[in-house]
């Protein structure tokens, strides 16, 4: 029960971190879609952006 509560708290905290607050240019992509798309986008889109930036610097 305590573990479940901790997990809900963590999920809720991450939901607020990822989906709330002032949007400033450059990160709107991760707020599109429902929760599944949000996390999918976070894993794929941001990883690709990072990879592209690294590639661009080489």
């Amino acid at each position, binding site marked *: 029960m305590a573990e479940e509560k901790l997990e809900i708290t963590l999920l809720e905290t991450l939901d607020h971190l990822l989906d*709330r*607050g*002032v949007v400033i240019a450059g990160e709107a992509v991760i707020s599109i879609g429902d929760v599944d798309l949000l996390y999918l986008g976070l894993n794929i889109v941001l990883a690709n952006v990072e990879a592209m930036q690294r590639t661009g610097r080489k």
Partner: protein
Amino acid sequence: MKSIVIGIHFQRDDVEPVTTAIPVENLFASVHAVDDDRPLADRDLLIEIAAVRARLLDRATFIAIRYGFSVRDANELASKCAGRTAKWRALLVEHRDEVEMTLKAPAAARPPRPDRRDFESGAAYLRALHDAAHTADLDPKFRGAVERTLVRRATGHRWIREAASVELAMLVRRSDLAAIRDAGEQLRAEFASTPFLLSGPWPLEVFSADDHQ
């Protein structure tokens, strides 16, 4: 190194020594420096940022910046925040002693999805789809109890209706946090079969968003 921007704060002491403060006009941004090679989607990084965010809120109320915004230096930060700091400063002054709390609950009944065959035009169908995504509502009895127990203690509130759930965002005085939590427990006892999540405190998230100004 890049600096992930966590929030906008009224004064430097609201940020330091929890994390680094970068001036942005007459306010301060809290940032968390990370290596360029570290992906923003790193799970451990998300948890680190969430922990810093919580410690910052312990010190003072701030405006939350949605995760994912990072800058190289103060100049880049200033250029991307240009034109917004006056409004942010006013918000921080107005809500200095307040934080946000949220209540999330599933909708009492999910409205039926619009059927394309009921609409003459695609535009009307799309409008109906959009509207249907924001029509959820709570059981009236539960909603009435929420109004009586939680909303009356808030200094501001907004109902956010999604397709299958409803969220109540509240502005709450820090001194009223314990009373809000107690009211939440009473609500849970009164409506044992109604699942809901009361969470917080949070920084200014809903009440600082541009579309709510």
